[in-house]
């Protein structure tokens, strides 16, 4: 397995994963979306809500606010307290606001200084004169497969590494006009795609159809064991930690599988 990082920022990343099967790439993708443990608000204790939103709408909006994940937290079902609620599986938060003002995610007060909303400027609700909100919230660790509030990986996807072969080209330029990604150019009277542009190809094959030669001088293919991976994080993990955590999850599961097989 080889990994070649193209872009890596706090919240998004792009890398080439090569020398692996599709199942490995897809396993990482699915783990990032569904199997990475994440913190999110699950329960509300509402003392006062005279805002224009119903309690349930307010609850959904608060639940979808990403909280920065701290590795000390574990899911309730895996906690030593057996789901009774203790500081390692339960986080208390509070939100008090008096109108007129717009309530932002940054106004949520967390009882743990290590965990806070990943974005401070998400509008929760706009309060008018005389409207108040007073609530306590309980956040738990969960998995993206159960609800979107726990989904840490956003827009995780991959495509096979494109490989466009150009042979016996007459340089007519029809493929250049047709390409929606504008990656083909003319070099030495032949169509040419530079290595940095090759990765942008969407494998649409419009260039093949536009070619006037029979068989087409330009042929689109891909490497079945190489993948261009792109994903974003919602802010609960950094992009780097997210993919590492996803790999950990897969490793743990594979370990458990091996244990089961040993017993048989």
């Amino acid at each position, binding site marked *: 397995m080889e990994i070649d990082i193209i872009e890596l920022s706090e919240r998004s990343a792009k890398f080439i994963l090569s020398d692996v099967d599709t199942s490995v790439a897809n396993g990482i993708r699915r783990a990032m979306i569904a199997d990475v443990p994440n913190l999110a608000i699950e329960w509300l204790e509402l003392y006062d809500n*005279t805002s*224009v*939103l119903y309690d349930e709408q307010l609850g959904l*909006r608060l639940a*979808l*606010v*990403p909280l920065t994940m701290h590795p000390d937290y574990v899911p309730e079902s895996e906690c030593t307290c057996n789901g009774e609620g203790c500081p390692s599986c339960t986080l208390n938060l509070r939100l008090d606001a008096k109108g007129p003002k717009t309530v932002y995610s940054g106004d949520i007060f967390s009882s743990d200084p290590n965990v806070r909303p*990943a*974005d401070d*400027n*998400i*509008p*929760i*609700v*706009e309060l*008018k004169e005389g*409207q108040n909100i007073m609530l306590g919230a309980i956040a738990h660790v969960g998995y993206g497969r159960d609800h*979107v509030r726990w*989904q840490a990986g*956003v*827009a995780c996807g991959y495509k096979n590494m494109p490989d466009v072969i150009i042979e016996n080209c007459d340089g007519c330029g029809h493929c250049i006009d047709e390409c929606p990604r504008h990656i083909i150019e003319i070099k030495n009277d032949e169509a040419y795609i530079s290595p940095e542009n090759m990765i942008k190809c969407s494998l649409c094959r419009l260039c093949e159809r536009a070619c006037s030669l029979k068989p087409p001088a330009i042929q689109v293919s891909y490497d079945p064991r190489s993948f261009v991976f792109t994903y*974003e994080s*919602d*802010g609960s993990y950094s992009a780097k930690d997210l993919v590492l955590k996803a790999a950990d999850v897969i490793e743990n599961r594979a370990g458990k599988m091996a244990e089961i097989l040993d017993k048989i």
Partner: protein
Amino acid sequence: MIPVRCFSCGKVVAAGWEEFKKRTEAGEDKGAVLDDLGITRYCCRRMLLSHIEMIDVISPYQ
């Protein structure tokens, strides 16, 4: 209120709403502002582009 996340991909789009509203009301091109905010996919772009604030319409009837 602007939905917190994109319906399709789950990206947190609400964080960019205030800036989007302020800048487009000042006359900037909507597409350019979205690019600036890093909202590149069309699923996320439609969340901001098609949003209408209803809170001032509803609030008198509470």
